[in-house]
């Protein structure tokens, strides 16, 4: 395994980790990736979730 392989694997690993975090959050919140922090004032919420709903 050379340096190019290691660089490539690290890049793919980081992307996979980020995607995994998103997927876990989405499934746990019942389909919406919104964290329910309401900082975006609902502008970025795709599923019309309220803060209370996500905190449940």
């Amino acid at each position, binding site marked *: 395994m050379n340096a190019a*392989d290691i660089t490539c694997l690290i890049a793919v690993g980081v992307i996979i980790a980020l995607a995994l975090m998103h997927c876990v959050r989405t499934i746990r*919140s019942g389909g919406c990736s919104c964290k329910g922090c*309401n900082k975006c004032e609902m502008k970025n919420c795709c599923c019309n979730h*309220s803060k209370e709903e996500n905190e449940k």
Partner: protein
Amino acid sequence: MNDEIEIVHTDTITVGLIGNPNCGKTTLFNKLTGSSQRVGNWPGVTVERKVGRIRSHNIDVVDLPGIYSLTPYSPEEVVSRDFLTRDTPDVIVNIVEASNLERNLYLTSQVTESGIPTIIALNMMDIAENRGIKIDVQKMEKIMGCRIIPMSASKGEGVDDLIDAIKDCVGKVPNPLKFDDDTEEMISRIEKIIPDTEHINKRWYAVKLLENDELAHKKFSQYEELISSMISEYEKKKDDSGDAIIADARYNAICDMMALVRITPAENKETITDKIDRIVTNKWLGIPIFIAVMFGVYMLAMCNVDAFVSPGAWATDWLNGQLEGVNDSVREWLENAGVSDVVLGLVCDGVLKGVFAVLGFLPQMLVLFLLLCLLEDCGYMARVCFIMDRIFRHFNLSGKSFIPLLVSSGCGVPGVLSTRSIENDCDRRITAMTATFIPCSAKMPVIALIAGAIFGGSPVVALFTYLMGVLCVLISGIILKKFRSFKGEASVFIMELPPYHAPRVFTVIKAVFDRGWAFVKNAGTFILLASVLIWFLSTFNWSMDIVDPDGSILADIGNAVCWIFTPIGWGDSWELTVATAMGLVAKEDLVATFAILFGADVDAMMEVVIEAVNSNLSSSVDSILDETISALIASGVDASYFTEEVKEALREGIESAIAAGGMDDFAEDAVDPLYSSMKNDALSMALDHSSAKGLSFLVFNMICAPCFAAIGAIHRELGTWRSTGFAILYQCGLAYLMAGIVYAIGGLLFSNTPFESWMIFGFVFLIALILMIVLKDPFKHINSHLDARDARNL
């Protein structure tokens, strides 16, 4: 204004938006807060409260679901009433539709009784004026004791006046509508009995007690005997029930007020909306028009036949070409950088191939979303609910169940959530279990792929899948209602049809962007992870050696379970089984899985072509063509695949190769037509080029358990994992039955599907399904078992 009361509040003003369904609350919410919540031209878009902020004025705005009264019959009404009685906002903005004032003021009369400072937003004034309705706003303000702001939320007219009025209104209590003397006397007698309440006027509770409101009676249970005897006496005197007496008194008070404030009534002439509705909601024409409209939508988005290539299909082909180019460039770049074959495979054959296979369908999805959003926003889809009510009623459901199906055509998750607008709990749970039968945006690439591989890109396949989804919902309405826990009459469907209007550009663009972005985000997350997993499992065997897909871990797993699908036609292909399982992660994963698994087959076929051409370069074109075809057939390609069209494409490729002096790995452009035909063909071969098997595979994957995210939403709506488990089991069971039936009937209809003994299962499934529909109590053993269990628990 009425007497002012002192309210202790912080610097932030909390405002609740309340009003009838589809009166423009969410549109106003978005205008006030700059948010972009989903708005729709049908009732029930908002199912739970949402909070936004007018930052420049320090005002918090709460958007509440649309309701007709504050007597909680449905979950939405509970949300709105709880907000008023428990959270007690500083100001209520009651949005009323100016052209339907009498009906909208019914809710207003209840809101003003609460004693919470209220502003009436007279929305859709432009439509009212077009209909010749004029209202004396100042006189109405005097009677109601609160500010009334004429406005048009969709055009942003009157929004600034409303914000100013909110700031001035805090602490100012409106006048409740006065009823007839007898009723007023009765209300004041009850008021004297009940103690002071924290936030809400005593009058509000007194009226609620007289209406026999269950929650109000519970709240004052210590006075129940005295209050009930007074109410019974009054009901006897009026010869009517308490709630009917109050409803009557409210409408009388509203009519009296309207006689004073309405300058000119609505002109009673037939509008354009009436004329269009006479045709599109016609008893006989409604359904054929709806089917024709949906066919047109799928035609424009997905059609890819010789006679007509739709804009969506054309753009998809173009984007696929570009993405393949990107993959080739990345591969070349990584090779030059010295990356090893395994890592190269992970990046190019795993991550990129899977993600790009799904992303390639984005143009088709955008065209589809655009057309559906146009239909929703102009008001046509609300008519479809009305048309569908006639059919749904015969299947124990109501037209209200069709609204979640409409939402599900975008994504199953909000579709399942929107079942909350259904009052009847049994109907609500049945709809939550079946809303995902309608093809969502994630299923569309799968439909397009199968349509392209087996049916020459015909849009009829998409229409068939949509109608199959509706059929399964209807069948479920009958079957599920025979289970003890779903028994009950369908709820009555009351829906106000909004007037047609030209689609609003911003709303449509926003909706298309939201759905498109969700599609892209899914490709970059769920699909990416699943693609890596599929690549890993299809590249290595149990000893972690690199092998062909047929000897991989994935093939072993697929081969172990694929027999399950033999009775429905496609149990001999482990690839199809694995793709179906991956569909649970996200339905687009079927496409990504095929791209990775069948991509390897195509690459192998390409190697055969290159070798055959290069080793016969000195021969004539015809001879090379014959050699190439023979080599491909020897490698497993079906002889029937070599049609005149494919041969011609191959001949052109060979001529180009001769001119270039031979083929190498990067001379694939020379045989592009063959390459793309072969790509589709790999899937077609897995389905034995059989239309019946193709449809069976499609039907199973459309109806069976949805993706994990939608399963999570179903769990939230059904409440327990036991019910969710039953829902998944039911969905998969029905999908299996329907796929078997489609396979058997398809075997009779399609000439490219020979009769197989397994098809007998399909006819057995058909008889079983008919029995479940026709028999009065087919699940009596299950129901009696549940009854016995309950009796034991008691």
